[in-house]
C-alpha cells in the first residue's frame, strides 16, 4: 500500500468499484485524525493541502502536521466552534474509489449520522480503547442498524495508549459485536488501530502481532459492494417520460428512471403500480443504447408492449409486487427543529412521487441509547427516532425498508415552506431487541 500513488489508479480506471461509507465517532475518539490518516496514507492529500496543514500546525506550535486539520470545516463553523453537518470526502486506491460521509459527533449527531448512513454500505464506528463501548457507541450502532447499513466496522482507536494490549481489544470487540448482533447487524469486523501512530489504518501494525485481520483500508477495499440484483425483484420508479416526437422517433415512448433494485430483461412481465395493470418490457435503452438486460442501480429507459397511462411517480415491478396502500406504519428520524406531532399535515416524498399525508399517530418514541419505547404524546423533536402511523391522500407502492432501502424510504416535507422534516423507513425498527434474549443466528440473506 505504501507504493500507492494516484498514478497507480489510472489504468484500473473503469474496472474500479465504488464504496460509500460513513464514519461515526466524536472528536475525542480521534475521528478527524482517523479520516485524515486514511486520506494521507492513501496518498489522497496533495502537496498544497498538506502545506496548508503544516503551516497551521507549525503556527500552533505542533512539530508534526495535525492530520485532523485536513477535515477542518467552514469558517462559519470555526468561528462558532461547531460542525454544521455531513462533509463528503473522496479518495481512491488502485482497487476502489471511496465516498466517505464524515459526520460530526455532538448534539445534532443523530440527524447527521442518519443522513450519512442513508447512502452508506459500510459504517465505521470509532471507540477510544481506554473508554470502551460507551453510550454514544451504542447509539452509533443503533443508527447503523436502523438505516440497514450492511457492514459495520468497529475501530478500536488509541491502542497505543493501552500498550497495544490484546485483552483490552478483545473485551471491547466482544461487547460491541454482541450488542450489534442484538440489533440485527450481522457483519461486524473489529480492528485495533492507532489513528495517530498509523497502526492498522493503512499499514499493518508492528505492535499488534496478535491481530491477524485486515487493516481498516484493506477491509474497505475488499468488502462486497452492493447486493446481488439477481436475487431481488425489480423495482423501477418512473422519473420522466421520454417522447422525442421527431420524424425519426415518432412512436418512441420511453419511461426513464433508475433501477432501484433487481434485474430487468426484455420480455419480462411487469406490474404498473399503483394502477395494477400488467404489461411486458418491449425494450430497454441504457442512455441511448439498446440492451437486453439492465440491473440496479443503472439509469435506463424502458419501453413497454402496451400503451398504458404511465407517468412520473408510477412504479414498474417484477416478482411479488407491493400492495399499494394509503396507510403507512414507519420508523422515522425527525430532522427539523420544528417538532412533528399527531395531526400534522405534511407532504410525503416516496421515490418519484410526492403526495399529501396526515400524521395520524406518533405511536412511540425510541430511546436510542436504551432502545426502550417512550410515549409519543409530546411528538417528536429534532434527533428523535420514533414510530408513526400516516395516512396518505393517494395510494403508494412501498416495500418494507428491510427489503429495499430505496423503495422503503421516504421524506416528510413541510408543505408551507418545503423544509425537509423527517426521514421515514417503512416498517418496524429493531424487531430483534424487543425480547431480552439474544436473537437466533441472523439470516445472512437479508444482508448480502
Amino acid at each position: 500500500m505504501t507504493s500507492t500513488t494516484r498514478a497507480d489508479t489510472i489504468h484500473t480506471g473503469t474496472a474500479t468499484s465504488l464504496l460509500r461509507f460513513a464514519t461515526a465517532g466524536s472528536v475525542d475518539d480521534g475521528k478527524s485524525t482517523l479520516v485524515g490518516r486514511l486520506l494521507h496514507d492513501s496518498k489522497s492529500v496533495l502537496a498544497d493541502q498538506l502545506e496548508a496543514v503544516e503551516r497551521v500546525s507549525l503556527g500552533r506550535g505542533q512539530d508534526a502536521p495535525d492530520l485532523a486539520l485536513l477535515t477542518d470545516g467552514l469558517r462559519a463553523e470555526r468561528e462558532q466552534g461547531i460542525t454544521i453537518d455531513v462533509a463528503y470526502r473522496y479518495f481512491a486506491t488502485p482497487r476502489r474509489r471511496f465516498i466517505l460521509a464524515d459526520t460530526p459527533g455532538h448534539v445534532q449527531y443523530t440527524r447527521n449520522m442518519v443522513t450519512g448512513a442513508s447512502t452508506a454500505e459500510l459504517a465505521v464506528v470509532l471507540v477510544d480503547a481506554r473508554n470502551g463501548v460507551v453510550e454514544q457507541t451504542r447509539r452509533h450502532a443503533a443508527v447503523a442498524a436502523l438505516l440497514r447499513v450492511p457492514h459495520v466496522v468497529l475501530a478500536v482507536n488509541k491502542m497505543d495508549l493501552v500498550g497495544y494490549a490484546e485483552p483490552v481489544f478483545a473485551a471491547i470487540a466482544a461487547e460491541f459485536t454482541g450488542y450489534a448482533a442484538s440489533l440485527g447487524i450481522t457483519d461486524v469486523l473489529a480492528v485495533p488501530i492507532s489513528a495517530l501512530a498509523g497502526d492498522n489504518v493503512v499499514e499493518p501494525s508492528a505492535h499488534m502481532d496478535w491481530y491477524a485481520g485486515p487493516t481498516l483500508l484493506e477491509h474497505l477495499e475488499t468488502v462486497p459492494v452492493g447486493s446481488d440484483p439477481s436475487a431481488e425483484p425489480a423495482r423501477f420508479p418512473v422519473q420522466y417520460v421520454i417522447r422525442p416526437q421527431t420524424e425519426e422517433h415518432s412512436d418512441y415512448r420511453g419511461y426513464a428512471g433508475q433501477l432501484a433494485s433487481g434485474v430487468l430483461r426484455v420480455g419480462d412481465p411487469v406490474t404498473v403500480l399503483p394502477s395494477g395493470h400488467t404489461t411486458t418490457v418491449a425494450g430497454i435503452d441504457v442512455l441511448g443504447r439498446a440492451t437486453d438486460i439492465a440491473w440496479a442501480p443503472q439509469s435506463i429507459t424502458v419501453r413497454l408492449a402496451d400503451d398504458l397511462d404511465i407517468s412520473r411517480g408510477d412504479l414498474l415491478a417484477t416478482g411479488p409486487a407491493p400492495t399499494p396502500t394509503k396507510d403507512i406504519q414507519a420508523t422515522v428520524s425527525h430532522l427539523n427543529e420544528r417538532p412533528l406531532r399527531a395531526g400534522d399535515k405534511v407532504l410525503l416524498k416516496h421515490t418519484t412521487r410526492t403526495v399529501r399525508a396526515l400524521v395520524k399517530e406518533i405511536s412511540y418514541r425510541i430511546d436510542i441509547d436504551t432502545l426502550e419505547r417512550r410515549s409519543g404524546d409530546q411528538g417528536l423533536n429534532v434527533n428523535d427516532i420514533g414510530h408513526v402511523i400516516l395516512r396518505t391522500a393517494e395510494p403508494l407502492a412501498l416495500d418494507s425498508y428491510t427489503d429495499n432501502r430505496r423503495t422503503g424510504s421516504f421524506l416528510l416535507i413541510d408543505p408551507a415552506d418545503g423544509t425537509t422534516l423527517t426521514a421515514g423507513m417503512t416498517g418496524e425498527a429493531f424487531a430483534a431487541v424487543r425480547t431480552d434474549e439474544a436473537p437466533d443466528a441472523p439470516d445472512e440473506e437479508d444482508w448480502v
Partner: protein
Amino acid sequence: MTTATDSPVRTEDNPPPASGRRYPHALSHLDALEAESVHILREVAGEFERPVILFSGGKDSIVMLHLALKAFAPAAVPFSLLHVDTGHNFPEVIAYRDRVVAQHNLRLHVAHVQDFIDDGRLRERPDGTRNPLQTVPLLDAIETNRFDAVFGGGRRDEEKARAKERVFSLRDEFGAWDPRRQRPELWSLYNGRHAPGEHVRVFPLSNWTELDVWQYIEREGIDLPEIYYAHERDVFARNGMWLTAGAWGGPKDTEPVQRRLIRYRTVGDMSCTGAVDSDATTIEAVIAEIAASRLTERGATRADDKLSEAAMEDRKREGYF
C-alpha cells in the same frame, strides 16, 4: 462474509472474509457515478418548470451537458444553457461553445459582465479579475428568465466549502447560500421545493473527482476545447501561475512575457485562470499527468481561491456558482 458470532480476532483458523468479491453485475465506479448523475438530471426535468445548465465551456460543464444528452436520448435535452461571459474569454472556448450549441440545437442565454460594467451596476476591480463579478449577472439572468433550477458543475472534492454542499441546494431570493439552513439530503430523495423567487442550484457531479471527470472524458471520447491540451502560448508569471497575455490587463511592465509549452487544467476567466507547464497533448497524457500531480486543481490554477482561506465560502454565500 463474517457473522456476529465470529471472533473479531482473525487467526489462521478464522480467516478474514472472502476478499474482493464482486457480483457479476457490479457497476464500475464511472458507471455508478454516471447512473447517479443521470438520475439527478431526470429528477430536475420531472420536478422543475424552467431549468438551465450553467455552461462555461469548462470540462465539468461539458461533462454535465454530455450526461444530459445521454439522459434524455433519443429526445432533445429539455434544458437551455446559460453562459456568464466575463469578457475575458479564451477565444477557443467561445468557439467550442458555439459549435456545441449548433451541433445539438440547444438554446443559449448569455449574461455579459461587460454590460453591467458599462451601465454602472458593476465596477472593475483593481486587480482586473472579473471572476468574482460574475455573481451579479448570474443572479440577474436567473431572475429575469425565472429559472427555478440551475445546474452547476461544482464537485465536492474541489474545495472544503463545496464538500458540505447539497446536490439540491436551495437559494433564497438573494441567491445566497446559508450552510446552516441546508436541507438534510438522504438516500437519493432530493427535495426541490422552493418558494416563488427562490431557486435551487443542482450539482449532478457532486460525487465526481477531477480524475473521474477525465477518465469519463476519455471513456466517452468527449471533445474538449483545445486549450486543455499542451500548446505553445505567450504567458507571464503572476502569483506563481502562468497567465495568458491579453487585452484584459496583463502583463504589467514588470512582468516579462515568454513563450512556453503549457495547458489549462481548469478553464475560467482569463485573468485568474493559470496554465501549467505540460507536454500532454493527448487525453491519456493528461490523465497520467493529473494522476501524478502533487497539487489540487484549484491550488494549481485559481488565483481567486488564493485570496483568502475562506474565499470560496464567501463567494458561495453571495450566490456564486
